[in-house]
């Protein structure tokens, strides 16, 4: 039963992943990617990692993909308006992705495949066990990862701030004492452009 579910999910995951690449319409690509994430989350469920499955759906399907969709809808990429890439660019893309494939195949060729022993504790994916593991055995890597995320967040905020400061400066140079209202105007303009 589980085996059939696994095959079905794998088939669906690979199929939707391929459709991500082959869809002409970016909106469809994003939606297929969401389906792929669902299949991966179901695989986690098959491994009894419920927490990971839920978080996977909440974070990837529920937040990141929504943002992707958001941006694509705003950009309004259609088949007609999509600019054709030059041939050199296509060539470069094919070569670099081919090289990546070679590397992956080379790295995975010697890997032994087999049944992964979950041990006596197959409930390792449940929240309580995962939490115990993260905060005892893997505390340092966990904290480092959280620091990394914090750094990325601060960086993103700083980039946004820079943008705003520049807009304010431009406004000040231009309009002197009416700077405040002009800043607002420019901010609005920038927001609508992005």
């Amino acid at each position, binding site marked *: 039963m589980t085996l059939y579910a696994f095959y079905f999910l794998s088939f669906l995951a690979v199929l939707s992943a391929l459709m991500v690449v082959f869809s002409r319409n970016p909106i469809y690509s994003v939606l297929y990617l969401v389906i792929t994430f669902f299949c991966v989350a179901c695989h986690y469920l098959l491994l009894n990692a*419920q927490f990971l499955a839920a*978080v996977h759906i*909440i974070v990837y399907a*529920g937040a990141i993909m*929504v943002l992707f*969709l958001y941006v694509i*809808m*705003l950009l309004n990429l259609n088949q007609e308006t999509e600019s054709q890439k030059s041939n050199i660019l296509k060539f470069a893309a094919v070569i670099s992705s081919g090289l990546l494939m070679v590397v992956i195949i080379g790295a995975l060729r010697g890997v032994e495949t087999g049944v992964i022993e979950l041990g006596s504790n197959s409930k390792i994916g*449940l929240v309580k066990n995962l939490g115990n593991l993260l905060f005892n055995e893997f505390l340092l890597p966990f904290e480092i990862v959280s620091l990394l995320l914090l750094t990325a967040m601060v960086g993103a905020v700083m980039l946004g701030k820079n943008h705003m400061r520049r807009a304010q400066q431009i406004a000040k140079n231009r309009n002197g004492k009416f700077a405040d209202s002009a800043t607002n105007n420019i901010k609005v303009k920038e927001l609508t452009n992005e």
Partner: protein
Amino acid sequence: MSTFLIYKLALVLAVFGITLLVAMYSTYLERKVAAFMQDRVGPDRAGPFGILQPLADGVKMFMKEEIIPNVSNKFLFIVGPCIAMITAIMAGVVIPWGNTITIGGETYTLQIADINIGILYVFGVVSIGVYGIMIGGWASNNKYSLLGAIRASAQMISYELAMGLSIIALIMLTGTLSLREIALMQGGGVGSDWNMWNVVYQPVGFLMFIICAFAECNRMPFDLPESETELVGGYHTEYSSMKLGFYLFAEYINMFTSSALMATLYFGGFNFPFQNDLGLDPNLVTILGTVAFFLKIGFFIFFFMWVRWTLPRFRYDQLMNLGWKILIPLAIANVAITGLVKILVK
């Protein structure tokens, strides 16, 4: 095994039916509440006190001509309301509608599935729900629909964060993600097992949660995705007939589910005061508990409507400021203070 399956199937059907029924009569209640607030009579033609009004509305929705715009993306146009409806109904699976009932030596739990990540499941389903609005709004190929869809997605993501953070403090207190266990923790009577409802320990968390629930359900004062004064009809401008009905219905089902969630998490779930001191049969206590649970849900649904007909709509920047600059820092402070108190008390 087979009785178990039949029981679960029956429960699924019952929850499905009750959810639809409650959502149906929420529309009626909404009109009556609006009428009461504005000193009118409200619907009173179909049946006594207009009690058949939802049926009449349903028939009307089904009979109306269905229009799919020529320039729209037809497949996604149909998929949109389906996703909205399916995700709205799915969330009811993990809600504990009552305690256990014992019939002939077998115990039956009044909950479809007690998974140990109950809250996260609800969050996952809710976060998928936004796709219904986004896809529908985009597929309509209409400026106003697209604006509504974009507003909806930005609003949902912002308030999901605050909602998740507001609930972390609660989870720290209860130590579990299972909704049934959280509900059971709040039960008890006078004496040794006296437990307060969680709202006593987490008033700020509850306040943030209910604000976020309003935003997630796209209810007034946060109904910017469909603000009719600016965007014609928002994301469902192009929809007609039962597809529009699905969108509107999904909103009421979401309201019902979030009311049930609030009642479970913060207001004792299926527990009512002094339930263990009355000396009643456990089965009767369970049934009374379910009734009490639905009364709590009814109050919250009324509260949703009360707010809708009292407060004006927020501006979009006010909405974002509230979400990012007030609710999220407050929620983080709440988590820190809860952790500190927990350590000190221990």
